[in-house]
């Protein structure tokens, strides 16, 4: 029992530190679920409209791979909430994982844990308290979501199935993070690894869901997000499926504790190797240092984006497999035939890829702030390096890095869709263009971080909040009937839909110009402020 000494104190401390963060997250999720249910329910008051909408969605490969299948086309609850099933589970998973890393590896890395414990903490106390906080958060989140859905007029059992499958995803990824925070040395790496697992889980379920003939549907079962979908809230409410994530969590906790024991024995999981005693000739500028700091993560992201591109292109070539029913065929004709629908799918997916690439841009730009607060900017700025040079080094990494990522994804999707459609020569340049047009919006979001860093460095993580708002506007703006000016706030909404759509230069130029102006303003304000 000594291994757990101090868990209670750490739980209280964590709750105190996060007393604002956790309630905000919970409220956002609960409101989004309830609001989205209410808005869609009003839309589908007529049962026939409901079934039509469900059929159209199930016939669209873009929607199925993005959100999943609708199991019961006549279920009001499911049709209202299907966009939040897998996608919401992904976000709750992110929350569950982040909370665990925040209260284990980050604490350990910053040395706060050491300071706090002074030797009176059991070796599992940090992990146990992080899991308790994270688990309690996602469970409360799930239960409140269930209540709010009932409040919107949906049935009780389905609402609880929905809330609990969200919580289950949070628990699964809390478990994943418990392991990643033992394996890696830094919180950044632990979060990154958790995010990669989340991404893989999302893609696995996308593969399973978009299997046209059902032969690869089992792949969904490899994914914690797939399990959440398989609970089938409002379409059978298979609560027993929730056992799968619970077992998964138990296994991961066992693994994490085993790792902690091994770490304590000094076996050290990742033995640091010695490196070069001298710096390479090229390491002589802030830019060279920035490259050194960003290259590892850029390589990992680049590889993931290449795979994502190949996968998207591959799914796109199976699009006609979806078109089985007569009504769907009719719809396809209206949308411009198979090519039209393939293009529409690719355009939607490229938009998603653009959103993901922005996450890289934001975190790369946020590196500025973490370098500053970790006191690593100070010794550099006390050499011949000017503030502008230092800022430029990281901003360039963010801007060029997102460019590389998006083009790699474009190339991958061009190659794989071109290969299976038999028109590589046409498809590759089209997809490269389709990916390149995403860049101005990505840059604009990155530029928002840069100006925050210059003007209000303490608020710089607000960059993620803005990103979240743009994401919600894009996903739910129309469902919620937001006024047009609000929808227009999201830069992503102005990106031309390529391939297949109309290309106009004006929005691209505007977005780029605004991004440039924000960055210039960010530089100017950074030159004027205190460091630290």
């Amino acid at each position, binding site marked *: 029992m000594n291994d757990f000494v101090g868990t209670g104190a750490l739980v209280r401390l964590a709750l105190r530190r996060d007393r604002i963060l956790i309630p905000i997250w919970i409220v956002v999720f609960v409101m989004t679920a309830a609001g989205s249910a209410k808005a869609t329910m009003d839309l589908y008051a007529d049962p026939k409209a409901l079934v039509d909408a469900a059929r159209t969605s199930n016939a669209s490969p873009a929607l199925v791979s993005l959100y999943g299948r609708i199991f019961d086309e006549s279920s009001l609850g499911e049709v209202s909430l299907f966009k939040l099933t897998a996608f919401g589970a992904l976000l709750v998973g992110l929350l569950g994982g982040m909370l665990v890393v925040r209260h284990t590896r980050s604490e350990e890395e910053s040395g706060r844990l050491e300071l706090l414990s002074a030797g009176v903490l059991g070796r599992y106390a940090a992990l146990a308290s992080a899991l308790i906080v994270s688990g309690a958060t996602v469970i409360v989140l799930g239960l409140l979501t269930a209540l709010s859905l009932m409040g919107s007029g949906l049935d009780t059992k389905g609402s609880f199935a929905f809330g609990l499958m969200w919580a289950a995803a949070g628990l699964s990824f809390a478990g994943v993070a418990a392991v990643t925070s033992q394996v890696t*040395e*830094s919180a950044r790496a632990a979060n990154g690894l958790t995010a990669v697992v989340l991404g893989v889980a999302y893609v696995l379920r996308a593969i399973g869901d978009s299997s046209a003939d059902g032969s690869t549907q089992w792949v969904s079962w490899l994914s914690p997000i797939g399990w959440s979908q398989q609970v089938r809230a409002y379409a059978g409410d298979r609560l027993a499926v929730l056992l799968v994530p619970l077992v998964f969590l138990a296994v991961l906790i066992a693994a994490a504790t085993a790792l902690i024991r091994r770490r304590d024995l000094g076996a050290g999981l990742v033995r*640091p*190797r*010695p*490196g*070069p*005693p*001298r*710096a*390479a000739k090229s*390491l*002589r*500028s*802030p830019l060279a*240092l920035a490259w*050194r*700091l960003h290259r*590892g993560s850029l390589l990992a992201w680049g590889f993931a984006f290449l795979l994502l591109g190949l996968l998207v292109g591959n799914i796109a070539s199976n699009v006609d497999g979806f078109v089985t029913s007569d009504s769907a065929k009719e719809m396809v004709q209206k949308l411009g035939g198979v090519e039209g629908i393939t293009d529409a799918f690719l355009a939607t997916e490229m938009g998603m890829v653009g959103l993901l690439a922005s996450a890289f841009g934001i975190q790369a730009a946020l590196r500025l702030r973490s370098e500053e607060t*970790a*006191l*690593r900017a*100070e*010794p*550099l*700025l*006390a*050499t*011949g*390096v*000017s*503030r502008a*040079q230092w800022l430029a080094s990281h901003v360039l990494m963010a801007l060029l890095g997102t460019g590389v990522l998006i083009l790699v994804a474009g190339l991958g999707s061009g190659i794989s869709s071109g290969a299976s459609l038999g028109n590589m020569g046409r498809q590759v340049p089209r997809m490269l263009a389709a990916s390149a047009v995403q860049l101005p919006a990505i840059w604009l979001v990155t530029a928002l971080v840069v100006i925050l860093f210059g003007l209000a460095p303490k608020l710089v993580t607000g960059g993620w909040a803005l990103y979240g708002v743009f994401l919600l506007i894009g996903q739910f703006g129309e469902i919620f009937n937001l006024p047009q000016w609000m929808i227009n706030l999201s830069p992503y909404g102005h990106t031309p839909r390529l391939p297949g759509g109309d290309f106009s230069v004006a929005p691209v130029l505007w977005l780029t110009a605004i991004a440039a102006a924000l960055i210039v303003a960010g530089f100017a304000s950074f030159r*004027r402020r*205190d*460091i*630290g």
Partner: protein
Amino acid sequence: MTSAIVVSGLHKSYGSTHALDGLDLEVTTGEVHGFLGPNGAGKSTTIRVLLGLLRGDAGDVSLLGGDPWHDAAKLHRRLAYVPGDVNLWPNLTGGEVIDLLGRLRGGLDEKKRDELLRRFDLDPTKKGRTYSKGNRQKVALVAALASDVELLILDEPTSGLDPLMEEVFRQCIEEERQRDRTVLLSSHILSEVEALCDRISIIRRGKVVETGTLADLRHLTRTSIQAELAGSPNGLAELPGIHDLDVQGNRVRCEVDTAKLDAVMRQLSASGIKSLVAQPPTLEELFLRHYEDDVPAEPEAAVR
């Protein structure tokens, strides 16, 4: 004589905290200048302003003849800085950091680099995250000392060094002094300051309360005297600069302002001294007087 650093009337606040409250500081070219004061007195803040990392709210600052805020990058090529908290990049080795910082300053003395690594017993192949606190500090020290610069600004450079390394550090600074480099050394280690510094400034609550050579400052402290006299002492109580006088028969105990020692001794020997114990002022006493919060800063006016 020129001054490497001249600060006058410097104010700096963080929100409601007045970190610097009219600070004056002068560091003469070629001297090793000690910068002392209790925790939170404003030493690091002063240094950050000197480096152009912070902008003073009011007052004048001149560094190597330039304005540290406007000409930061240009001036920085002529100085090296060792921060109090050294954080290294987790996946760069110590050797890489030393080279990088040196190059960004405009060049490194290769021979000196190797020599310093040897003297400080530092392994340059370890990654940043695997260094201990003292070793991180050494990385920054080697990078600074191996750079060919006019001015060294060191903020508690020996925090975390073991006594052996502390000795190496002293030798290095001694050598820097021989080469006529200017050093601003913030420190809490009094013996270090005593051994190295030509002049010191003591800062308290954002103001410099004492400046001068150690001898100047010693002058301000009290020597404690215990004496056994041949006859009964007289006239002692009227002497200026005598404190806590305690006379029991022929025995006398008292504290004497060091500056007034001569007159007191004359008076004592007039009665015939049989035995005498005099304790010279320690530096600790001097500093403790300034560090303790409620001590009235009485000798302040006398020095400046």
